[in-house]
């Protein structure tokens, strides 16, 4: 079972890497989502796949009964999913803002549009803030 899951992880991670290498940043983010899914599953496999009962301690006892699932990878994955969710959401918002301001999501066009922005119609382009880094 572990082998099958490991191969799946490999395939999903590989697809993620393929997407991450694209010039289109939207695909880059999709690639990240695939990769983080694959990593989470691999964390789960690292805790060994067993058909166990839910890891709950019954009332009155201080240790869980025999044969429960390993709870630690689940806790780790839950944390990792939450963090990944936040990071991907942030990256999406950032990409949206970039698209508004620079008019492109292609990596090779970003730099050349710095001095020659093509704002997307319908979005504002006000430089309300002092520019510190502009050369």
């Amino acid at each position, binding site marked *: 079972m572990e082998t099958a899951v490991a191969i799946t992880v490999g395939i999903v991670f590989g697809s993620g890497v393929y997407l991450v290498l694209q010039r289109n940043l939207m695909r880059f983010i999709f690639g990240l989502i695939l990769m983080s899914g694959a990593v989470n599953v691999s*964390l789960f*496999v690292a805790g060994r796949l067993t058909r166990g009962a839910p890891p709950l301690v019954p009332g009155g006892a201080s240790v869980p009964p025999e044969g429960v699932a390993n709870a630690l990878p689940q806790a780790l994955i839950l944390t990792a999913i939450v963090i990944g969710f*936040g990071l991907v959401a*942030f990256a999406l918002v950032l990409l949206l803002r970039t698209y508004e301001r620079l008019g492109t999501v292609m990596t090779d066009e970003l730099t050349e549009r710095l001095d020659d922005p093509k704002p997307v119609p319908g979005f504002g382009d006000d430089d309300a803030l002092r520019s510190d880094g502009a050369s």
Partner: protein
Amino acid sequence: MSSWWTVAPVALPLAAAALAFALVGQRSAQRVIATLTALALVPLSVALLMRVSQLGIQTAQLGDWPAPFGIAFVADHFSAIMVVITAIMAAATAIYALSDIDPARESLQYHPLFLVLVAGVNGAFLTGDLFNLYVWFEVLLISSFALLTLGNLRNQLEGGLKYVAVNLVSSLLFLASIGIVYGLTGTLNFADLAVALRDAPAGLVTVVAMLFLVAFGIKAAIFPLFFWLPASYHTPPIAISAFFAGMLTKVGVYALIRVFTLLFTHDVAWTHGVLAWLAALTMVIGVLGAAAQNEVHKILSFHIVSQIGYILMGLAIFTPLALAAAVFYLAHNIFAKANLFFIAGMMRRAGGSFDLGRLGGLYKTHLWLALLFIVSAFGLAGFPPLSGFWAKALVVLASLDAGNAWLAATALGVGLLTLYSMTKIWQGAFWAPAPTERAAGESASWPLVVPAVVLAGLTVVLGLASEPFIALANAAAAELMNPDLYIDAVLNGSLGTEVAP
């Protein structure tokens, strides 16, 4: 109750950040909270360092769950020194920000984000658990993402995207490596891991070590993984750049030093040999990159990379003297580098630009600025009697001691090239005749000057009275070279009973 000292450097900024977030819209209240918290961190962290010096390695078990089951916070000399440095940098940055961060960015929650960043950095330094290290890394990353792109200027977005993209990939690699380590040993507590990895198959451990090297190497900006840094660090306001330049890559370096002294010491000849090559290449490529730049803050960004090489070199040589050199170098470099960023910010205000072609004549109009620059720049380049001299001397001595003459030669050569970059800034900004037409410079206010003077003073003190600081670095190195102290403090210190790994 003693465990609170260990937790305080994380809990205080986190609680302050929460309070500041709750006070959205009250900019001056947020400013007061951020500044007071940053200032309060200094005595708190110094107290922690003193406790560590007097009582040995301090541990805290969060929620009273014993190690290795709960989350442990551990402060040894190395961690405590880093926490003290963070506190000083946070205080300096908070004061500088009073004048450097505009109201628009303050309304975008600069202050709470900065406090979260400080909490994340301290958390990464103090945690005693691999997964918890990942969490703190993410805490500091997400706040650094937000700070880097605060204001959504075009060049910030462009630089920020690169920074975010590369760091997200690095985080995924880190997480994947954690998964493999957990599969290998069944534990994630540093101390417990160190014990368990001794019995693990050496080949697999080397593979994991290399995975961690890549994951942390991206964050530390070592060769060949540094390209995101010069592409993004110059875009936000100087107060943010300076803290990033000083602290963030150093968190990656800290993580490298921690795992390559505590966990991956099974095959030093191979793993640390790789580190030595990377250190040399990082030094050389970084300084060459800087030579090609013509704007103050971009030159400085490349120098961050170059300086990381020196610290890595100390880790690669892996003797007590070399590690002490690395720790001392860390402290020296953070202060000198961040201060150069502070000074660059004042140069831009005085001269209206970061571009060396457009600056000039500042020596005549701003003598005090020239003096501050000289102290920090020569400190960075390693002139006696400033802090950089001792830092470089220790690194070179350690590599000669270990029979690593080529590494020592590289370090000295790179030192010369560093001096070249610094004289280039000096020549362009201070000595060259002032350009005929120039926007009237703004006068520097005290919040800009005070942190720069304090940090320049630290560079001098670290140089002139280096003995106690080198003693501290030696104490840190001694603990790093003897992981059993760390393991014993975590697994037995707070428990009193033996816990089977």
